């Protein structure tokens, strides 16, 4: 028999063992191909070609994808190798040299890989159209695009794939050369046995794990200051370390205490859940930590991206309360109004006469809180007419409107430290009470100056009394609101010519479209990566559990012979699976809730709903894997007796 025949025969005989690894390869290949196809797709490149962000996002996402795919494949390969270690040992036992075995494995790996590559590209080509449609929809283009098979994407996939096959082949060779025959034969039976933890040290580490996580959570709540980056790193480190300790020590320690208290009277359910879990605590700690941390990251990424996308409109509206604003361009404003009328577009026009000044805000003790800044005094009565919900402050008092206080990391939340004092004029001779802060804008954010709302009379007074003060300027703001969505788009086209290139005078519609594009892309990429990641971690857990199930087959047989029926045994297994799947998920969700909360300052709108939706989706898909493993266990337990 030639080596080649041996390879073919071995694949055919062990095809059941191979399907896991084969599936992992196909999955990796097809997803990578889909991604590469989108990257090279002409209909996307045409539309987004000029956008540098777009290309960069895709490139970064591509690298991330590559990392995930590589980790996943290598992990699947290591499980595959472990399952076949006896076979590998057997080849050596019947006289094949290590070189021969390695060569045999590599040839086999290449054949498998080639099959997976073809199938992967085939599957990828089939589904890439679907992904393209989703992307276009998210970006707000409603065009049906035919997708041609992308040769460039195929080439890119082949290159990546070749690298992966080389990696896995090295991995296989190392397995053959590094392990003795005995190790190969015993590889499947390895597991660590629960040892009595050193009580004091274990208790300390167990508590430390929890403490580190709590510290991380706490710090994440107020990390926006000068040391933002350092804080982020600290949060990340302490939560990851805490999570590891949680799995490695805390949970093991709790289990140990629980089991000790049972004094041998463990019961069937615990014998089937707690005991095997403790048996593999060390190995499980690593993978569960990895899965928890990565789940948390994915969840955060997906929830945040989805929230940003979901909030694109409301966020834009918060920044730009008016559809169009002309600052000191009365003539342009008039002609714009005329054009709107001519085009038959319904609109509301409201001029706002404001005054801009330079001044400082300080507390009543006279300590200046900030350096001198531009201030825009807006008349409340006129804002009301323009449709803003504002109260008219009493004469001589002002209220600060700012939607971004959170992002700026200022600690003075609504109502904190007020009243304060505004100091104006050359020598600070004019003073005004600042009574409150409202987290909202009443003027488009691009109009320069802190937005201070006073009564109309107060603005008039300032206009009359302050000429010559630093930064004094009368500002005429013509605000336009166009209620109809389609009409607003038309109006936006008319508005474009009034904006000179150097000025930043965005209108609502244009800004919103732009946000939709970049956030849609962000959303797509994070959802795509999230999906890949979810399926990879889910599969890893599934594969791991499959291997465990096979290892426990004998125990199931014994239990069945002792008279426990499938139902009894399954109850214990379900409990174990719940732990294996639910604990990382729950802790991951908890982590991500704090992470999303910390990052939510990026978003002006409330993101509870979209985050909850994203997390629920994630949990749902995750649980499909749990159900799959339980199904696999059931099959094994059912057939254990025969």
């Amino acid at each position, binding site marked *: 028999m030639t080596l080649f025949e041996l390879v073919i025969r071995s694949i055919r005989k062990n095809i059941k063992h191979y399907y896991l690894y084969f599936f992992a390869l196909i999955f990796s290949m097809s997803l990578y191909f889909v991604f590469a196809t989108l990257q090279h797709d002409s209909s996307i490149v045409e539309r987004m070609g000029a956008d540098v962000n777009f290309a960069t996002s895709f490139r970064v996402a591509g690298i991330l994808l590559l990392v995930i795919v590589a980790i996943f494949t290598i992990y699947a390969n290591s499980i595959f190798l472990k399952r076949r270690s006896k076979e590998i040992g057997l080849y050596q036992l019947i006289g094949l040299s290590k070189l021969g075995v390695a060569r045999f494995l590599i040839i086999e790996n290449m054949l498998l890989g080639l099959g997976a590559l073809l199938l992967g590209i085939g599957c990828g080509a089939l589904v890439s159209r679907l992904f393209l449609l989703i992307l276009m929809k998210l970006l707000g283009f409603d065009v049906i695009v035919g997708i041609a098979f992308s040769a460039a994407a195929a080439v890119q996939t082949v290159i990546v794939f070749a690298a992966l096959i080389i990696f896995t082949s090295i991995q296989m060779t190392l397995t053959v050369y590094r392990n003795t025959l005995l190790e190969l034969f015993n590889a499947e039976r390895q*597991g660590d*046995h*629960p040892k009595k933890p050193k009580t004091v040290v274990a208790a300390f580490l167990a508590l430390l794990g929890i403490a580190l996580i709590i510290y991380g959570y706490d710090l994440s709540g107020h990390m926006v200051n000068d040391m933002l980056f350092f804080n982020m790193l600290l949060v990340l480190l302490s939560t990851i370390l805490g999570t590891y300790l949680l799995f490695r020590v805390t949970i093991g320690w709790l289990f140990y205490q629980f089991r000790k208290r049972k*004094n*041998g*009277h*463990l*019961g*069937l359910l615990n*014998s089937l859940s707690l*005991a*095997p879990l*403790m*048996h593999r605590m060390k190995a499980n700690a690593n993978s569960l930590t990895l899965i928890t941390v990565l789940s948390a990251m994915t969840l955060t990424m997906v929830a945040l991206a989805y929230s940003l996308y979901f909030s694109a409109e409301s966020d834009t509206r918060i920044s730009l309360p008016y559809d169009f604003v002309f600052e000191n361009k009365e003539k342009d404003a008039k002609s714009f109004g005329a054009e709107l009328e001519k085009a038959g577009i319904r609109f509301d026009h409201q001029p706002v006469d404001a005054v801009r000044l330079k001044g400082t805000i300080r507390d009543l003790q006279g300590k200046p809180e900030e350096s001198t800044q531009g201030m825009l005094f807006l008349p409340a009565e006129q804002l009301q007419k323009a449709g803003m919900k504002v109260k008219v402050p009493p004469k001589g008092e002002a209220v600060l409107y700012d939607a971004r206080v959170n992002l700026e990391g200022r600690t003075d939340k609504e109502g904190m430290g007020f009243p304060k004092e505004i100091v104006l004029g050359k020598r600070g001779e004019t003073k005004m009470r600042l009574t409150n802060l409202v987290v909202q804008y009443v003027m488009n954010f691009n109009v320069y100056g802190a937005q201070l709302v006073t009564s109309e009379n107060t603005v008039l007074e300032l206009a009359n009394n302050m000429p010559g003060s630093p930064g004094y300027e009368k500002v005429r703001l013509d605000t336009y609101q166009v209620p109809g969505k389609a009409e607003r788009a038309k109006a936006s086209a008319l508005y474009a010519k009034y904006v000179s290139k150097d000025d930043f005078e965005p209108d609502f519609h244009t800004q919103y479209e732009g946000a939709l594009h970049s956030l849609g892309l962000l959303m797509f990429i994070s959802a795509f990566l999230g999906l890949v990641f979810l399926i990879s971690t889910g599969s890893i857990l599934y594969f791991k559990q499959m291997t465990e199930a096979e290892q426990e087959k*004998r*125990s199931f*047989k*014994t*239990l*069945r*012979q*002792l*008279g*426990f*029926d499938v139902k*009894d045994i399954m109850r214990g297994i379900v409990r174990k699976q719940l732990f294996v799947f639910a604990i990382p998920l729950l802790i991951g969700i908890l982590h991500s809730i704090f992470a999303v909360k910390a990052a939510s300052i990026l978003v002006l709108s409330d993101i509870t709903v979209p985050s909850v939706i994203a997390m629920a989706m994630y949990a749902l898909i995750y649980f499909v894997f749990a159900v799959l493993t339980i199904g696999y266990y059931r099959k094994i337990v059912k057939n254990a*007796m025969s």
Partner: protein
Amino acid sequence: MNDINSQKTVLHAQNVRKTYGSKGSAQQVLKGIDLRVLEGEFVGIMGPSGSGKTTLLNVLATIDRATEGTIRIDDADVSKMKDAELSAFRRQKLGFIFQDYNLLDTLTVKENILLPISLSKMDKRMAEEEFNIIADILGIKELAHKYPHEISGGQKQRTSAGRALIHRPSMVFADEPTGALDSKSASSLLGTMEDLNRKRDVTIVMVTHDPVASSYCSRVVFLKDGQIYSELYRGDKTRPSFFKEIMDVQAVLGGDNVDVI
């Protein structure tokens, strides 16, 4: 010692047949076995390799089903029971000692032993008492919190025996319990089993190759080609003389470890 007529029948097998394979290549392994086991008996089943000992034991122990015939244990017809009923029956009434122990690696000695009563409503104090008694008899009390990989083969087999006895079963089935043990641990285990059989009136059916092992029994049934070939009662004989008798029958049968077809 055993007065056959006044004692209760625990197990009664009638015309038990077992056929493996489908029609074309059917092989009848058990060819009509009739066997009655009385309460408190210690029955050994011997016979050449391939004669059907394991098959018979599995069928009697309800782990496998007979193709034909009836089996009654404690007056219940187990051959007619459904799988679920059978499981519950096994769990409550029967105990098993396997050749390769079949302990759960993930459980300690004590946890393994207590497994059969893990679903019963027995309260913890009683279970603890029961465990102490059995662990004392088997001499494994000190090992209670050790894992199977930390103890010797003989100790594992004792643990397995403990697991078979903890729930006070009507019958204990053992398939070559001494097969993996050296002669010293084997005789120590067998001595304990004999003790248990006498003191606690446990009914035991044990398959074995080893004439020494079967000399501990109160009766030995010889199997050949799926049929009962002969029976020997120990009666008041000493163990060595019973052993000689067994050897004699075995010589006629074709000896140990020899396939007789």
